[in-house]
């Protein structure tokens, strides 16, 4: 049977291997071939782990030959954001600070994907330490949007979104602290999910904001994302992450449930907000119409404090980042400034020369906000605003099962066209509040923009720990649109035959 890897859902990759249509090694080679043919333009990868991929594939083929039962994602090509430890790879966070850091162990989220049988293809580019929304702050190279390589893929998980959109891998993992999965998913035309805080273990993922960070999957189909979610929660609570919850379940079980009569919230003021591109607004109205045509009840809700979520986030996240990044002292690991005669000099110069501009900015902001006399004014006040934002969501989710809004106010923009950091921070307006409250969100591609021709994603947000319900609505939206499985046209079909 001849097939192109980038056209196959994860389920069909695993089924094809189980049926003997192709081997796992053939799948691994097809993915490596697609990366070789496409990634020169896209630059999603920081490392391609060919040896690990072929070894994993060989194990799956041996298991099949021995008649052993195959795991659910056997042979599915997957890659990981480079803030996730995987033994046998470096974990750089796209920073000079960790340029030569060899993973000392494997993150739980990565291990659970491996346990589900995936083929690990490597590590993906990101904004340095996940500070950004373009992936341009990577210390090594930018990543290009596969739909138009002059444009950014979004960020911070831009490599993850781009690798999936380019059809180089079937699934990728990213992390989302303020929108870093949902925004690049929207800009690259793929599905990206931020699960509820606590659903996926953060053990082995380099921390940015410990009360905000959450790992989640990217795929070209909601079903692939649901399969990855099931793998990520298999085994229940992770004893290595004290905030991890027992959420073990099959996210496919209710994926195709009808949404007739169920309520989807919209926030009219958000759809009229300044800065929202007309083609994105039109796409949201179309998506609302399609959900209504699928039988959903459209209900107006309000999140009155959402407009201030950016202020709350930038009072909280830099503080958590400053605390977490204090560990990078150049002593136990990381860049160490040579030739220093005193420890304090070595610390300050290692951090000055190991971190890039944005990483230094965020830590400086955090250091200021946590200083004596300033803490109460901003940090503590922001934690109180967090209470109000969370209460807004509780009121809204008493009325509706999901809330629809944009993932990003615009389509992908050209590299370098936004240079003011504050302007970039404002682009997170639609995603940031769900990190503050901890509830779940997913971006689903709904159409190509009428003006730009670039992908637009609609974001659905769900109540905390109702991730399965959120996936049901995402699947309903996907069914109603015509973007399922789309590979960026410039990449589709280049290499990767099976």
């Amino acid at each position, binding site marked *: 049977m001849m097939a192109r890897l980038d056209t196959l859902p994860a389920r069909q990759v695993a089924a094809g291997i189980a049926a003997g249509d192709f081997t796992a090694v053939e799948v691994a080679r097809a993915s490596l071939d697609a990366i070789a043919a496409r990634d020169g333009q896209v630059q999603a990868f920081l490392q391609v782990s060919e040896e690990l991929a072929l070894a994993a594939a060989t194990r799956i083929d041996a298991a099949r030959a021995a008649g052993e039962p195959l795991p659910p994602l056997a042979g599915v090509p997957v890659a990981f954001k480079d803030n996730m430890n995987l033994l046998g790879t470096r974990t750089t966070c796209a920073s000079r600070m960790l340029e*030569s*850091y*060899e993973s*000392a*162990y494997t993150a739980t989220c990565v291990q659970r994907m491996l346990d589900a049988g995936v083929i690990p293809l490597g590590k993906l580019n990101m904004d340095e330490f996940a500070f950004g929304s373009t992936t341009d702050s990577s210390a090594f190279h930018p990543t290009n949007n596969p739909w138009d390589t002059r444009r950014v893929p979004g960020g911070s998980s831009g490599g993850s979104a781009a690798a999936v959109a380019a059809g180089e891998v079937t699934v990728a993992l990213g992390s989302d602290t303020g929108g870093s999965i949902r925004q690049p998913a929207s800009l690259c035309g793929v599905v990206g999910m931020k699960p509820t*805080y*606590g659903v996926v273990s953060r053990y082995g993922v380099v921390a940015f904001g410990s*009360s905000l960070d959450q790992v989640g999957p990217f795929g070209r189909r909601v079903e692939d994302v649901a399969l990855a979610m099931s793998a990520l929660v298999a085994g229940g609570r992770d*004893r290595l992450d*004290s*905030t991890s919850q027992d959420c073990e379940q099959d996210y496919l079980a209710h994926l195709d449930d009808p949404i007739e009569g169920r309520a989807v919230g919209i926030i009219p003021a958000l759809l009229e907000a300044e800065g929202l591109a007309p083609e994105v607004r039109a796409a949201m109205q179309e998506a609302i119409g399609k959900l209504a045509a699928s039988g959903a009840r459209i209900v107006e809700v309000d999140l009155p404090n959402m*407009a*201030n979520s*950016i*202020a709350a986030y*930038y*009072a909280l996240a830099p503080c958590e980042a*400053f605390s977490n990044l*204090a560990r990078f002292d150049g*002593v*136990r*690991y*990381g*860049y*160490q400034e040579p030739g220093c*005669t*005193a*420890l*304090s*000099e*070595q610390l*300050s*110069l290692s*951090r*000055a020369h190991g*971190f890039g501009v944005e990483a*230094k*900015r965020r*830590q*400086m*902001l*955090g*250091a*200021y906000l946590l*200083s004596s006399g300033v803490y109460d004014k*901003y940090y*503590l*006040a*922001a*934690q*109180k*605003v967090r*209470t*109000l934002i*969370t209460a807004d969501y509780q009121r809204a989710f008493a009325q509706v099962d999901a809330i629809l809004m944009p993932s990003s106010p615009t389509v992908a923009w050209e590299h370098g066209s936004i240079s003011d*950091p*504050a302007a970039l*921070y404002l682009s997170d307006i639609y995603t940031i509040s769900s990190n*503050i409250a*901890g509830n779940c969100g997913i971006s689903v591609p709904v159409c190509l923009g009428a003006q730009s021709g670039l992908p637009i994603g609609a974001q659905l947000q769900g109540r905390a720990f109702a991730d399965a319900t959120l996936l049901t609505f995402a699947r309903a939206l996907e069914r109603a649109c015509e973007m399922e499985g789309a590979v960026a046209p410039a990449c589709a079909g280049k290499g990767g035959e099976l």
Partner: protein
Amino acid sequence: MPLTKQDVAGIADYARIALTDAELDEMTAYLNDAIALLDPILEYELDDVEPTFHPIGELVNVVRDDVVAAGLPLEEALANASSRRGRSFRVPAILVDGGVA
């Protein structure tokens, strides 16, 4: 009152990030812009609002039984260090000229 360059030099010292003179200028402008972005939270009357430090309420400390378990082997723990001596990480002098370096 906006932060001055001297204020920012103090923050850099506290954050253990050595900044050049030009970087201090850029950072001063950045920090003042970023702090202005936080103004909306100063508009709130929050005396009666409890803070939420974490999205999962009622978090409790997770402990395990106090039994010896395998940890990261010494060689692996030292493998990423730029400088080591024997079983230890090696650093320059902590005390210089009778005070903290």
